[in-house]
């Protein structure tokens, strides 16, 4: 998504990326990031929470006016209403690439727990 934002900026469009993985900015350099700790698949907010969605979007839009430096990451002050362990975001089947790399992923997890 960051590469797409870069492409659009190169083509004269201003962008803001609302994302739960702002770390990608360190890899590719994303012009403007609104970082939020919301789950995959619901980055704007909870289902049917119109007011909550509006608050998140207004905060993200304001970055277009306030960001002065390319690569700016603004952490939005919103907290998801469920604990991470209780939040469901996984697809119903393991994705093909995760299946392919499952052994490596388990190894990285075991190393991180050491």
């Amino acid at each position, binding site marked *: *998504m960051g*590469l*797409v*934002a*870069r*492409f*659009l*900026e*190169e*083509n004269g*469009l*201003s*962008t*803001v*990326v*609302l*994302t*739960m*993985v702002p*770390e*990608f*900015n*360190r*890899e*590719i*350099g*994303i*012009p403007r990031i609104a970082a939020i700790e919301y789950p*995959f*698949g*619901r980055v*704007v*907010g*909870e*289902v*049917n929470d*119109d007011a909550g*969605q*509006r608050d998140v*979007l207004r905060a993200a*839009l304001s970055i*277009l*006016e306030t960001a002065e430096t*390319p*690569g700016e990451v603004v952490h939005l002050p919103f907290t998801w209403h469920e604990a991470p362990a209780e939040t*469901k*975001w996984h*697809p119903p*089947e393991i*994705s*093909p*690439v995760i299946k*392919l790399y499952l052994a490596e*992923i*388990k190894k*990285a*997890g075991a*190393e*991180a*727990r050491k």
Partner: protein
Amino acid sequence: MPPSLSAWMAKSIPENDFSGDIPWTPLKRPVSETVFALMTSAGISMKTDSPFDMERERREPLWGDPTYRKIPKTAVETEIDVNHLHVNTDYVKQDMNVILPLKRFIEFEADGTVGALAPTAYSYYGYQMDPRVLLNETMPRVAADMRAEGVEAVLLTPT
């Protein structure tokens, strides 16, 4: 994100800040006067369109559909299809605004928060291990479509 997956992904992300050039188009006028388009990588398509290709990805796990779909700003949940093998798509099927906030932006257009919402929104598929087709073939078309509708700024929402 499961801790193991997070630890694995962290291996491919550098520890230092990005040091290269970052393209930059400043906003030309306040948000309240700016024409917006929405774009998501959620794999949303209209039921009248062909869906994103999940079968080829099941056969070729490192391939992701590099095409895009147009979504009219008036689209509602009963008119869309959502295909994504990496997240749970149930929520966006119940309320598409959780990832493609068209209704919220139509409200913003009415109350003057934004200048306007362009007639068309865009969806692609947020799993591109090799982004060359997406960037070299798909996005130039999207940018041309946006220019034709007078778009000045884009909100991007990943899956």
